[in-house]
């Protein structure tokens, strides 16, 4: 019904456009010069018809569910709702909806059965009411907008003002997204910290995110001390950076100082391919090839390597990050003024001396910024570690052990679990909040360093 309503709105807006344009065309060639072109008259009427209707429908769809839920609860007999807790009421609602949708598991009580029938009826009414209300609104708007059209009517200015408004709204979507992220993370994390103290989460040394299935269950009380998870994240990110930084940096040095244009034109696209491969592919590569290879190598040396070792996950993540470091370092090295490089070479320094004694020190802030950005990527990277790292949080910095990371825990805690009241799922949001804060700070820091350095030379 929603789709049909939207189609109807689009169709009626088109009709409105032609109606307005026809009227605008009638103004042309009269004694008084028409202010706007006929198509602007058309657009004015179309905008008047379409936008209020779309807004109405969106608000309607957003509120319909809640309003019907409240009305349904009100219609239940008082004996059922009297003294019932919020979660009990929610249970009633989902039962009613299940019955209405025909998913009946046990014989519903007559009250629920009746409520389900009411629910189906009300939904039907609400759907048609939306269509009727939207149509009525559009007809009224059409009449009003047509009434406003005159020869000297400033239709173009009106349309342009609406367009500007739409553009401002679109550019605030970025802000709305950020607000949405922060609000949802804070809200769910707050609910988590109501059940688990912040200090335990941040400083506890034991991470066993389980919930009791029964009240009397001894095991599985759950522990939410995230330090082992943080340690695992740092371990894997460190391994990734140890792999990526030298390779990326030497690649950039070679490309800037030694490679000719032909070589550069071959290597740059290859680096772009490396950056464009989806992370799920790297994850599968880690599981299929790298982890068994490391295990084989370990058993050759007589060392027992865990099948999902931090080394495999971190190493493959390092491969993924190489292009970030190489391209950001490349930019930083290129941003050093040419005069400095030429001066050094003119004094007789070799290219390596120019690089290590002049270019690298000058580009160091930019390179540091790039490394920080890459580190934030490594910390936030998900699929490689979900596939290749472990699930159990062990407190170790041994790279051949299995460790877990923040992102792995977020994904495993939330996959296939829709229960939203348990600390288990809410913990994922607390971890997400920490992840968001850390990556954001790293980014802000990196951008700050890069910007400060750029001012020096420009």
């Amino acid at each position: 019904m929603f789709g049909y309503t939207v189609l109807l709105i689009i169709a009626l807006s088109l009709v409105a456009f032609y109606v307005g344009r026809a009227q605008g065309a009638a103004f042309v060639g009269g004694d008084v010069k028409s202010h706007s072109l006929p198509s602007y008259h058309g657009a004015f009427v179309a905008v008047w018809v379409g936008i209020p209707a779309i807004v109405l429908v969106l608000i309607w769809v957003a509120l319909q569910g809640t309003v019907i839920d409240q009305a349904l609860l009100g219609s239940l007999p008082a004996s059922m709702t009297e003294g019932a807790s919020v979660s009990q009421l929610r249970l009633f609602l989902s039962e009613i909806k299940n019955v209405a949708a025909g998913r009946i598991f046990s014989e519903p009580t007559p009250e629920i059965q009746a409520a389900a029938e009411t629910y189906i009826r009300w939904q039907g009414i609400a759907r048609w009411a939306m269509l009727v209300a939207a149509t009525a609104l559009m007809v009224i708007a059409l009449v009003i907008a047509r009434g406003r059209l005159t020869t000297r009517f400033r239709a173009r200015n009106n349309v342009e003002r609406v367009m500007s408004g739409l553009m401002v709204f679109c550019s605030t979507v970025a802000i709305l997204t950020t607000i949405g992220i922060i609000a949802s993370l804070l809200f769910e994390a707050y609910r988590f910290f109501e059940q688990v103290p912040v200090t335990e989460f941040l400083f506890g040394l034991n991470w066993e995110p389980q919930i009791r299935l029964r009240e009397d269950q001894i095991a599985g009380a759950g522990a939410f001390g995230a330090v082992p998870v943080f340690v695992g994240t740092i371990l894997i990110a460190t391994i990734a950076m140890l792999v990526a930084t030298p390779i990326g940096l030497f690649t950039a040095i070679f490309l800037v100082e030694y490679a000719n244009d032909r070589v550069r034109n071959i290597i740059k696209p290859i680096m772009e391919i490396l950056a464009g491969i989806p992370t799920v592919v790297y994850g599968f590569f880690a599981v299929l090839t790298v982890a068994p290879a490391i295990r084989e190598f370990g058993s050759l040396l007589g060392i027992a390597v865990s099948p999902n070792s931090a080394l495999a996950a971190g190493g493959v993540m390092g491969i993924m990050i190489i292009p970030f470091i190489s391209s950001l370092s490349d930019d930083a090295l290129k941003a050093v003024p040419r005069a400095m490089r030429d001066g050094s070479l003119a004094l007789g320094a070799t290219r390596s001396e120019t690089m290590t004694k002049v270019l690298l020190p000058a580009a160091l802030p930019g390179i540091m910024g790039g490394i920080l950005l890459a580190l934030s990527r490594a910390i936030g990277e998900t699929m490689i570690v979900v596939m290749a790292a472990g699930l159990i949080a062990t407190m170790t910095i041994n790279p051949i052990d299995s460790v877990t990371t923040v992102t792995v825990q977020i994904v495993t805690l939330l996959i296939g679990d829709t229960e939203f009241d348990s600390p288990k799922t809410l913990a994922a949001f607390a971890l997400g909040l920490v992840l968001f804060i850390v990556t954001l700070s790293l980014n802000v820091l990196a951008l700050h360093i890069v910007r400060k350095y750029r001012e020096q030379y420009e």
Partner: protein
Amino acid sequence: MTDSTMTVSVDWTSEEGAARRRRRHAADRRLRAYGIGAISLAIGLLAILIVTLAATGYKAFVQTMVRVDFTISADLVKADNIPAGNFRAVVANAMGTLFPEVEGRAEERELKRILTNNTQFMVRDAVIADPSVIGGTITLRVPASDPFDQLNKGEISRDLPEDQRRVNDQQITWFDKLDAEGRITTPFNWGLFLNADSRFPELAGLAGAIVGSFYALLVCFLISFPVGIAAAVYLEEFAPKNRLTDLIEVNINNLAAVPSVVFGLLGLAVFLNFFGLPRSAPLVGGMVLALMTLPTIIIVTRAALKSVPPSIREAALGMGASKHQTIMHHVLPLALPGILTGTIIGLAQALGETAPLLLIGMNAFITSPPGGLMEASTALPTQVFIWADSPERGFVARTSAGILVLLGFLILMNAIAIFLRQRLERTW
């Protein structure tokens, strides 16, 4: 101070000087060698990645099929109620005719394992499609089950001791007999593209994932393209320099660096829990991907708008066009090739995103392609993830094949972007 000159004489030709020079040049060559080493390492790793994927994946592009003649006797299948027919018996009889010597329930069961588990349903569908075969025979090519597919492709070695492989000697003899009769073929595996997911590797395909990814990308495009262009046009052409626009710009840059899994959390908390949209739906996946693609599109659109020379704007304004008309009629059309190129690259990134889709449930086990935007579905990368997690041996090849298909789509999209850039983009 006036006539004091440095009179340190350096003998450049001395043994000492030559040695120093050699050392310095050796250091230069070393740095160069490190660079070449680093690049070779990176390229080598990329090559290993692609070669292993291709080596494990290419076998999933063909599928072992067994040609079997099924006798549809009117006793087992009634013409007036075909779906209720006893197709299990039809399959058992067909295999019995091929191997009359096989006796006993256990042996017959072993024999039936050569064919895929769903054989009876395939026969049923074939009979429903053509009811005239009732009473006669129908010849179908049925996928061999995973162990025999592996055996045929050489993944399972016949030299292994019997208790270490998944097919026993007796089954191998049967299979070889079928092969000798010319009943075994390995044609191109259309099922990989036409079937949806399945618990049985020989039947699992990417159709559901491809359709799901298509819907999600469609939603992503429909949201992020207009919103991104409108935002970029406003920020680049109209916005006054004030705190609000500064805030928006900082926001866009930061959003581009937020980890993708956080967008998944946003989708879960806001779209699923707050707005109550259905789980696993391509609509929600597309909306989350749109939020992630938006910064990319805004940034490339602004760059494309910047590259349109000011003379175009001044000419339009000079002819009496309004600012809106200048931008809508002249600047935006000229910037469009650049915008399209950037959008396609942004969509290619969105196609490869996995983590946010996992959190909104697009990793469900779904055995039919989605019929609409609100129906549960998987996407290509999440399908790869599901298969990578599946224990059956046959899914390893499927996973690699899925990845190759995904990479194929990415290469195609990037090629279109490069083509557009070369054909349409103007230099001023």
